[in-house]
């Protein structure tokens, strides 16, 4: 039974890591209706930039600030160069533009900082936490707990920002209806730049956490592919959905991986790649808008 809980907790905690990436998608989709395929590349770009700045000899905290600044500039740039000319285009065109953007960012990041794998040490060990092991008798990685904490702080901060500040109010207005928001004098462009910057911040956090686990390298941008089933399960428009979806996907993925391959004697192994997608797909057949998504009502 302990083994089951260990797998479950491991899954839940890695699910939090997926949620972190999914959160970036949700932010942008919620505020502008753009499905940002480049989120994974933003994660890669942020991590690469951070490590690159560290390697230049800048200490940790200034490097973090500098990197944040870079991500903000990137957000404004994306809004200017990519999004603004594509206003009024169908959502599919915007989606394809973000695929182009993801190629651009991958090339740019690796072109500037190099393609080799780099270690990123945040000073937190990826070892079983001794306190929890003594109290409950199961092994839970300290690093996973730390990243769960980061995710909690991030979600809390974003929730406060969106619910308690003027900008957050404007953002929710834009999410509701672009044209109505424009009509009451909310600057659409500023709001978009802010959302993309917030997505950049989320990408930075996700990039640091994932980067210190996997090493900073190209595969970081593939983390986004892990976040997609989380997203469709939770619904594109819900922050809570991203978290809950992440937990469900993370836990079920690990449990399926461990137990299905045990039951079939290892014949059905390495299903982690597609199992979450299938799970999410089956769920969509029952509830097309995801767990917490908004119901789409269509009229002619």
């Amino acid at each position, binding site marked *: 039974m302990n083994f089951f809980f260990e797998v479950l907790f491991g899954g839940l905690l890695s699910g939090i890591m997926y949620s972190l990436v999914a959160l970036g998608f949700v932010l942008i989709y919620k505020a502008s209706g753009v*499905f940002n395929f480049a989120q994974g590349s933003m994660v890669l770009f942020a991590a690469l930039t951070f490590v690159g700045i560290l390697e230049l000899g800048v200490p940790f905290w200034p490097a973090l600030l500098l990197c944040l600044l870079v991500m903000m500039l990137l957000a404004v740039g994306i809004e200017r*160069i*990519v999004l603004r*000319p*594509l206003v009024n*285009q169908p*959502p*599919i*065109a915007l*989606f*394809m*533009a973000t*695929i*182009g*953007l*993801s*190629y*651009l*960012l*991958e*090339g*740019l990041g*690796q*072109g500037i900082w190099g*393609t080799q794998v780099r270690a990123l040490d945040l000073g937190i060990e990826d070892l079983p936490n001794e306190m929890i092991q003594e109290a409950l008798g199961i092994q839970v990685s300290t690093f996973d707990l730390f990243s769960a904490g980061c995710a909690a702080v991030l979600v809390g901060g974003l929730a406060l920002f969106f619910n308690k500040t003027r900008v957050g109010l404007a953002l929710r207005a834009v999410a509701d209806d672009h044209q109505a928001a424009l009509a009451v004098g909310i600057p659409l462009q500023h709001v978009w730049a802010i959302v993309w910057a917030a997505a950049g911040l989320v990408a930075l956090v996700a990039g640091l956490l994932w980067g210190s686990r996997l090493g900073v390298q190209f595969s970081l941008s593939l983390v986004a*592919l892990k976040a*997609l*089933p989380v*997203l*469709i399960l939770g619904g*594109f428009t819900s922050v809570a959905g991203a978290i809950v979806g992440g937990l469900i996907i993370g836990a079920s993925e690990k449990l399926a991986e461990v137990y299905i391959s045990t039951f079939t004697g290892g014949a*059905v*192994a*390495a*299903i982690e*790649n*597609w199992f979450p*997608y*299938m799970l*999410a*797909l089956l769920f*969509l*057949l029952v509830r*097309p808008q*995801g767990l917490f998504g908004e119901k789409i009502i*269509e*009229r*002619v």
Partner: protein
Amino acid sequence: MLYRESGQFKTSYRADQAIFPIRQDRIAIMALLAVVFILVPIVADEYWLGSILTPLLVLSLAAIGLNILTGYAGQLSLGTAGFMAVGAFAAYNLNLRVPELPLIVDFLLAGVFAALVGMVFGLPSLRIKGFYLAVATLAAQFFIEWVFTHVGWFTNYSSSGVISAPPMVIMGVTVDSAVEKYLLTLVMVAVLALAAKNMVRSRIGRSWMAVRDKDVSAEVIGIPLLATKLSAFGISSFYCGVAGALWTYCYLGTVEPAAFDLSRSFQVLFMIIIGGVGSILGSFLGAGFIVLLPILLNNIAAMIGHGTLQADTMANLEHIIFGGLIIFFLIVEPHGLARLWQIAKEKLRLWPFPY
């Protein structure tokens, strides 16, 4: 002066509905076919035929497949390479297990298998649409890749997971030189492209477009949504499957599941964006652009860099240029190269007088 249609009268509905109603177009198409069938095999060398033109044609076919689904029926798909893989492995297994079948039948049956798989993964399209569907097609991509990597039967229990296409014999003729493979690919692609061109003008093509433009309205005027969407998925996957089979047999010779990974899907998607979404011609233009651009870049880099540019720098540069081009095209010409060609033709009709 050259491209003017005055004096060409149509006296029957047949003539009015011809696929190329203007005489100059017919002449141009005939000339083009003559060039690609006769002149190119004589002039081009082994490298051009085997390493550039054959993959270009195969990818055009895959692009036509995706264009049917995304461009005409409006269902965004990121699983193209998965369906290509189904075709590739189906053709291999048919050839291996049912050796009596002629090779061309193998190719077509491979397409049919891909179509069946495509229709299974197209089933959710009735319930979900847009981005949800795009992500759902990713499930197809990953699942198919996993099946071919992990189920040994499909690769005939090859230890490396790589399959080698057996020698091709069509009606007693062994197809093994680059020219023969090129011609085989060309015939298949030409026939299927013509079929696609006609299909999108037919009843089924028009119902795809109605569903693309507004599915609720299409349903109201009596178009069966499920049948239309599934037929789009099926026929699109058929084209991708045949492309996958040709990719294995005529281009690479050996193939592994990793040859059909997500980046291949994106490559085909880029082709239809740059070439023109919802255009058969655009599929060819886009494939040409995407295949030839890296070669051009490499040559330019070799000329100015004299070998100073590293391979990974080139790869990054390629990424940046591709990404930039996608965004550029979407902003400047959302209808792609095919639209530029159309504009050029319209200007040509008035030439040399501007009005």
